[in-house]
């Protein structure tokens, strides 16, 4: 038993001789929880997850004996937790609309029964290893929750409960550990959030994560198990893009971490997710989704923890063999929470007030993404997508620049595009993806062998048009040759007819890979036909005025992904449209 010596914002100095760094503490009469972050002789420094006002020097403080951990078991999906995994709905039932302090509610419901079906391979007196599947629980209609042996437990399985309904706390089985002790198994176990969950080995990421967003999938792909960042100034569309990914991506589990952002954005997710259907399974999206919310007005220390809580939950589903996507909005708020605590600890700031370890912490966090062979020999992945909120939209600031070094896919959002309401405002010149070669294999095998070449051609067009636009801005469009004007026009067609994609347009919000490629190749075909005519002497102006040019810009929002037949019929008519004009310029074909 110890006591409070000093209170300084979220930091308290405690007299607590026996503690270790990382230990959870309960402090003060109202029982605020926090963790030890420093020690000096008999005193310890702890950061608290809740507001410290009202605490007094001399009040009690106690070590809890474990580090910040999460509960892993059935009851996670469909839920919303705060930054230290308190279930917000249950907290609300207990303490009302406001976050009262010192409320303790278990993360997973204790009274709910789950139907457990033991794994047929498990029988008593056999050996179990950490990560082995003990059995399954159908947690939601679309997701089977695999009950795993805790990673560090292995030994002889003495017994295992038969099929039946159990609460998470009931003993499911017992394992005799190598040292002879008996470990009881439950439907859930705990894992410390700051320690990555173990796996057998890393696998290569091979399959693209399909998000249904054309500029992402077609131009700057991300793989399942990959790492991506979305930097952009305020209002550029980071949250919308992450919500779009959370809605439409072909992952099996989605973990949405609202880290220091707006309360209403989580409400938004909570309201639309149950209504939307997973395009891949047809089930309500909320069944595969889990939210971690530490909004900007909630205590800053729990904000720092929320990212680790999220990634640990992601790893847990990965260990069950799932492809998991975690979106974190925003990693900058996490870094700022780190900075705030470092400042109060008197640690030397290196850049913009951030401590020297910012880069290594960021790297260690993103390192927890990846596709792995799990302890039980299965395969699962965690894809990590972090929003970055650079002050003043300046990408050279520390969090953006460190992140850029770590990730493979960089979706840079542009203020100019957002101002003109060109969404997603992903800048096609600033963005990059290191996963193109792997993605190309998938597209070639599953969609079209011409994908990589088409993508490259479209990007070339966009780059060329950037140059041409500079000329136009100086001397006007009349200075361009017909070929140049047509190039500019075709780039415009790609921007408006392909890259721009409104999240709020019911038809266009999601674009299947087939539709993405159909549009891409159709627009390139228009470009090629036009270029042929221009070379034959047709003026670009005439081509630009073709009704086809306005029509093609609308295709994306006229044809659903499930119904591409009419789109394909329109595409098939492209050559004929140009033939009409060609008659005026082509040397007359010899009569047959």
């Amino acid at each position, binding site marked *: 038993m110890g006591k409070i010596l000093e209170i300084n914002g979220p930091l308290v*100095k405690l007299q607590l001789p026996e503690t270790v760094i990382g230990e959870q503490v309960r402090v003060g009469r109202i029982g605020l929880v926090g963790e030890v972050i420093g020690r000096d002789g008999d005193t310890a420094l702890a950061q608290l997850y809740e*507001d410290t006002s009202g605490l007094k020097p001399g009040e009690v403080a106690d070590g809890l004996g474990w580090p910040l951990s999460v509960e892993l078991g059935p009851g996670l999906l469909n839920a919303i937790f705060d930054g230290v995994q308190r279930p*917000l709905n249950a907290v609300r039932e207990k303490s009302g609309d406001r976050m009262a*302090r010192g409320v303790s509610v278990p993360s997973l419901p204790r009274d709910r029964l789950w139907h457990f079906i033991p794994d047929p391979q498990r029988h008593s007196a056999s050996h179990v290893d950490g990560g082995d599947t003990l059995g399954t629980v159908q947690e939601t209609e679309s997701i089977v929750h695999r009950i795993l042996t805790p990673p560090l437990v292995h030994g002889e399985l003495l017994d295992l409960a038969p099929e039946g309904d159990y609460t998470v706390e009931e003993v499911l089985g017992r394992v005799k550990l190598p040292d002879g002790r008996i470990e009881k198994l439950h439907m859930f176990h705990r894992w410390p959030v700051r320690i990555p969950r173990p796996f057998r080995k890393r696998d290569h990421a091979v399959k693209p994560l399909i998000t249904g967003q054309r500029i992402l999938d077609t131009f700057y792909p991300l793989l399942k198990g990959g790492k991506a960042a979305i930097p952009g100034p305020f209002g550029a569309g980071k949250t919308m893009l992450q919500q779009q990914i959370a809605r439409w991506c072909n992952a099996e589990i989605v973990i949405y971490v609202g880290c220091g952002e707006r309360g209403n954005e989580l409400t938004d997710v909570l309201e639309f997710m149950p209504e939307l259907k997973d395009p891949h399974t047809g089930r309500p999206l909320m069944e595969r989704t889990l939210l971690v919310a530490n909004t*900007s007005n909630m205590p800053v220390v729990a904000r720092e923890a929320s990212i680790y809580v999220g990634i640990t939950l992601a790893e847990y589903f990965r260990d069950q063999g799932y492809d998991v996507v975690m979106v974190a909005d925003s990693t900058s708020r996490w870094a700022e929470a780190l900075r705030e605590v470092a400042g109060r600890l008197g640690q030397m700031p290196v850049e913009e007030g951030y401590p020297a370890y910012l880069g290594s912490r960021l790297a260690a966090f993103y390192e927890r993404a990846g596709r792995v062979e799990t302890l039980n020999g299965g395969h699962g992945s965690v894809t990590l997508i972090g929003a970055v909120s650079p002050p003043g939209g300046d990408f050279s600031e520390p969090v953006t620049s460190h992140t850029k070094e770590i990730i493979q896919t960089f979706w840079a959002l542009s203020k100019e595009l957002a101002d003109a309401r*060109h969404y997603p405002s992903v800048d096609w010149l600033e963005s990059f993806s290191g996963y193109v070669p792997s993605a190309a294999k998938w597209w070639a095998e599953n969609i079209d062998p011409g994908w990589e070449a088409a993508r490259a051609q479209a990007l070339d067009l966009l780059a060329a048009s950037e140059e041409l636009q500079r000329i136009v801005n100086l001397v006007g469009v009349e200075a361009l040759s017909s070929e140049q004007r047509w190039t500019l026009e075709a780039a415009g067609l790609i921007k408006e007819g392909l890259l721009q994609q409104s999240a709020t347009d019911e038809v266009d919000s999601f674009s299947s890979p087939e539709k993405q490629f159909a549009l891409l190749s159709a627009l390139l075909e228009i470009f090629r036909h036009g270029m042929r005519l221009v070379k034959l002497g047709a003026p670009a102006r005439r081509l630009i005025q073709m009704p086809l040019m306005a029509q093609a810009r*609308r295709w994306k929002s006229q044809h659903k992904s499930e119904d591409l037949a009419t789109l394909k019929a329109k595409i098939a008519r492209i050559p004929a449209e140009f033939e009409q004009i060609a008659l005026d310029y082509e040397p007359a074909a010899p009569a047959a």
Partner: protein
Amino acid sequence: MKNIEFRTAVSAQGGLLVMGGVAGVSAGSRVSLKDHVGNLRNGLVIRSSDDAVLVEVFEGTDDFDLERTWVRFLDEPFKLPVSRDILGRVFNGAGLPRDGRPPIISGDRRDVNGEPLNPAARAYPREFIQTGISAIDGMNSLTRGQKLPIFSGGGLPHNRVAAQIVRQAKLLGDASSEFVVVFAAFGTSHADARFFQESFEESGVINKVVMFLNLADEPVIERLLTPRAALTAAEYLAYDLDYHVLVVMTDMTAYAEALREVAVLRGDVPARKGYPGYLYSDLAEIYERAGRIKNRSGSITLIPVLSMPSDDITHPIPDLTGYITEGQIVLGRELFNQGVYPPVTVLPSLSRLMKDGVGKNFTREDHPHVASQLFASYAKALEVRGLAAIIGAEELSDSDRRYLEFAQGFERRFIGQDEDEDRSVYETLNLAWDLLSMLPAESLIRVSEEELAKYHKGSA
């Protein structure tokens, strides 16, 4: 402890007082001080140990005589007494009357810091508020429960715009949808405060207004309390009395500067431009108090006004604000200099909640597309204008010249309107189509073909 007076001040500098030898003082507790002439001052405990207690003194400590300073620790946070009687009253930044009338007597006293709302308790705001201002309603609409700041600059008419919003704001088709107003001014001039007061009086709403004033020549540290006191009053009106509350606060820049001043004294590590790293969280504690709560009928709509230092939107104060609020209405000097009122620069302006509060079932089915089209066409028109400045308007193509005319008409007729002109959203949308009809229908890709057929004057 509440009744014991301590005279153990060790040092004082720029508003921070260190007290020695007081054990068991609670963090965040309110402090009452009697200075050497017997005047009472207010303070707040910001750090506490048995050896030393650090107190932030709202009225400053410059003239302190440490030997003759008496300090009482009240063992509770700053609280605001609330009752129905606050309507029509004027308070100072700490919630004491400044209208010469008696203080509010109420057993209901609320911690001005509030407690963060459980994110699971929020209801998503969806009800369109018609402000009667086209640049807002048409392109950056306001929603009941939204936090939408006005970014402005010295000399720009942000006060007039804010006052016009307060006068005209109503729900569509609901005449009884009146707002009560909480108005907080900190660091602003007496003239500005008077302007609002007169505007409320003229429009006859003054009895539905609660004012909290901490003016430019009044204690700086009290500014840290003013928005919190105002929002505490707003929460009471919204969630206890079921009012829809419109909160106008000005000027957030003065608030942030006060915060910086205190942070420097405390020795906090600065992040950008000397502002402390926690400016974001601190502003969020204020802004996030706007919103709606499930199963409650009231709401808090928040319109903070801030002046951008040197008109720079990347300055930490507008920047961090933009990262927290649900959009921003940006006023621009260029339009202002051309005599356009309200000088709303639409491209950097944004309303994030617009997508869920306009269109079919809310305003009119074409609204979201028209807004998007106006943005796209105006962005293009500005490019053309830039080009015209270089090569001359005569050299422009026909189609480009139409864009030039569109820009002109858009700025004069759509953005520009009178200070007492209250346009319905339908007038706004029809006006938008008048302007879009100056452009060829084929170039309007963001509106649907059906909408073009129905509304574009050049079609059919």
